[in-house]
């Protein structure tokens, strides 16, 4: 990496850090903090999903299920079995990691529509199971969960959660940028362009796809675990098909193959329904129109379109 690129890379993270530091000055009340924290949770999931969709070119229509599994693992282990929250989080992440690893190899052999349908099917089966096994999950009423605490200190209050989520978001973004600039990141972009060409160039495409799928699933699970303590409850709808669609929309709206695009997409689409409460009935319609409109008029997403591709690395023409 040349000095100039290093500067470019870290300037993006510095801007994000400044925005996250300055944002509390603009947040007038607890409600605004709540939106910001939720946007942060979504942004972390989207950064991981963006590695899969934007960089590796593999769609997943079931990512909310991994978020949901992490959330339910934390919820069930802490409330029903008295585990400490951090241990439950790690256990959930390990479980989701194992599950996604087992699923990844057979599923990622599929492409395009078939991959979409397979991930969608997995997601729906998981959400049906969460809904049905009510002796464990509380069924459609959901599960009430206590605060997050580690080493005797309890995390509570909007400001504390904001600080934690902001730091974690920065770490996630930084790790994602690191990965993209690593050999694995270049391999992912190569297999996005042409899987056969990437294989001919000596890239183990199956291993790369599995790695990024597991990584994004584990990230979703960890965020789910944190979310469940923040929100105090979880319902199966959070793991459902529509949630998966929302996550994909955030990624493509902000900009595929752009880490900051995923963050911005998540932030805007989390805040938008709150700002449009007057149009509450039309929320679903507006969401659909955004999905279609983004893909037709700015297929590379908001950030890349606005920036005119100036400072973001161009994708080589196919």
């Amino acid at each position: 990496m040349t000095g100039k690129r290093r500067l470019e890379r870290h300037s993006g993270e510095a801007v994000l850090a400044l925005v996250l530091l300055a944002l509390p000055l603009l947040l007038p009340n607890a409600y605004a903090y709540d939106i910001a924290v939720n946007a942060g949770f979504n942004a972390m999931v989207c950064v991981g999903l963006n590695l899969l969709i934007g960089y590796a070119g593999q769609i997943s229509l079931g990512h909310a299920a991994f978020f949901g599994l992490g959330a339910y693992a934390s919820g069930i282990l802490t409330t029903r079995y008295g585990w400490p929250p951090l241990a439950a989080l790690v256990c959930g992440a390990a479980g989701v990691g194992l599950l996604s690893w087992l699923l990844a190899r057979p599923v990622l052999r599929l492409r395009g529509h078939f991959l979409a349908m397979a991930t969608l099917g997995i997601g729906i089966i998981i959400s049906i199971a969460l809904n049905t096994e009510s002796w464990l999950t509380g069924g459609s009423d959901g599960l009430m969960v206590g605060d997050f605490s580690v080493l005797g200190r309890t995390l509570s209050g909007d400001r504390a959660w904001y600080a934690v989520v902001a730091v974690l978001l920065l770490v996630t973004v930084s790790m994602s940028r690191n990965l993209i600039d690593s050999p694995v990141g270049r391999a992912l972009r190569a297999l996005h362009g042409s899987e056969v060409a990437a294989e001919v160039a000596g890239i183990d495409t199956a291993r790369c796809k599995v790695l990024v799928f597991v990584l994004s699933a584990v990230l979703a699970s960890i965020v789910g675990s944190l979310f469940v303590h923040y929100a105090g409850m979880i319902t199966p709808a959070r793991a459902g098909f529509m949630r998966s669609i929302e996550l994909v929309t955030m990624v493509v709206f902000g900009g595929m193959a752009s880490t900051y695009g995923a963050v911005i997409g998540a932030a805007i689409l989390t805040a938008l329904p709150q700002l449009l409460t007057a149009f509450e009935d039309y929320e679903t319609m507006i969401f659909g129109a955004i999905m279609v409109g983004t893909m037709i008029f700015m297929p590379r997403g908001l950030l890349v379109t606005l920036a005119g591709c100036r400072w973001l690395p161009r994708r080589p023409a196919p």
Partner: protein
Amino acid sequence: MSSAFLQYLFSGLTIGSIYALAGLGFSIIYNASHVINFAQGEFIMIGAMATVSLTGLGLPLAAAIALAVAATVLVGAAVARFAIMPARGASPVTLIIITIGTSVFLRGAAQVLWGKGYHALPSFSGDTPFVVMGATLLPQSLWVLGTTLAVIAGLGWFFGRTLYGKAMLATSCNRLAAQLVGIRVSGVLLAAFALAALLGAVGGIVMTPITFTSSEAGIMLGLKGFSAAVLGGLGNGAGAILGGLIVGVAEAMSAGYLSSAYKEATAFAIILFVLLFMPRGLLGQPGSERV
């Protein structure tokens, strides 16, 4: 054959007919454009909901059905014109997001127009069930099966005997060659969506007296139709019909013998199995991928 088994078979074939019609819609659009139309389920919902609201306005059932089908066909054509055509040549991921967005949009519009409640239609010819070897068969089930057969026969005639049908087949075989012999392929795309919308609407309407409908009903019906299409071999008409019936019967059997809660998961378990172990489906053509 026990009467319970026969009962599950009847209900499975009935709901399977709707999946078959939806699966045919997927196949027709896929053949014409290589687009997977995730909005197919919304066509089913729109046909059913429009019929419900038109009969609510006091129209006789037959007139309401005709108008509702026409309206759904218009919606289908509009989807092709305003959502699919502007994105011609986009990648599969982009097209998937566009059709999912379209389905979310249509569902949102239906919520605004018709609310979120459940609605029913009266049965077309009474509710007195027939008893066949100890199992009951609703007259409406016969309507569903008969309508499905009629629609399939109509499609066979359309694709086998008419110039438009043959133009659509030609386009699905080779787009460029079809263009060279003077077929307007954009018209074919429009016709494919209109036809798929018609199949969905008809299925949704005949099914509503049995299953009820709501603005949310389209999601699952559409996804199961897609399962049917993939099971039979994507793009294969006979395969879609066979796939639809298999998915419907499997669902009814698992509801009867295993667990009614996991009934909804059956179609997705089938599709995962098919995708992982026999990706060409039951009747699909073997082929190789071009690099």
